[in-house]
């Protein structure tokens, strides 16, 4: 069922090497724990947050801004967890 409200938040990626395979996988694994439909947008290109291929294809670099959008019953929690993960720099520098 589509929920009416989409929640979104824009974050800046801060880890030096950008969203390479390992942090992309962490992001996708976290997204996959939620029921909501989750998308990530960078400069008009939108991909499935639950797909490693999708996230990697965005080629997010350090200091790039991305918008995380979630739609569904656990959307709020999903956004919070994903934003926290980005802000934590995925445990990297």
């Amino acid at each position, binding site marked *: 069922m589509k929920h009416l409200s989409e929640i979104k938040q824009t974050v800046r990626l801060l880890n030096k090497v950008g969203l390479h*395979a390992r942090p992309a*996988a962490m992001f*996708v694994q976290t997204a*996959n724990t939620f029921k909501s439909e989750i998308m990530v947008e960078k400069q008009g290109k939108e991909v499935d947050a*639950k*797909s*490693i*291929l999708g996230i990697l294809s965005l080629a997010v670099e350090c200091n790039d801004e991305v918008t995380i959008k979630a739609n569904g019953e656990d959307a709020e929690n999903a956004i919070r967890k994903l934003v926290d993960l980005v802000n934590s720099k995925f445990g990297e520098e």
Partner: protein
Amino acid sequence: MIGIIIAAHGEMSKGLIETSKLIVGHAENMATVDLLEGEGPESLRDKLKKAVESLDAGEGVIVLLDLYGGTPSNVSTLLVRELNIEVVSGVNLPMLLEIIVKRASKNLKELRQVALYAGREGIKSINEIVEKIESEIKEGP
């Protein structure tokens, strides 16, 4: 949880699994079935069947093959009606990673589509991409 088996020639599956661990960490319910040098189809069939039976917790097992038409592929063909398996050839790292992260939220049939899509989408010509970007820059906005 849906099981994952990589059935391939030599030690390819071990390499894929070790590499996947670097990226997505250790994954449960995953096994390899290797066709060793000099090994025949009967022996491989037994190994594959045993592996499927030990991994199938009721939701089935996805079997990823290295080479369509090879022995692991021929042996799997004989087992698709006997066991609850989906068999996809042409395993690559994108296919494996995508299956690992998506299997908890998909059923076996859906996971087959994930495998086919990720395997194909993971193959790109980097030169083509660079050429496209260069021509876009040249043309301007």
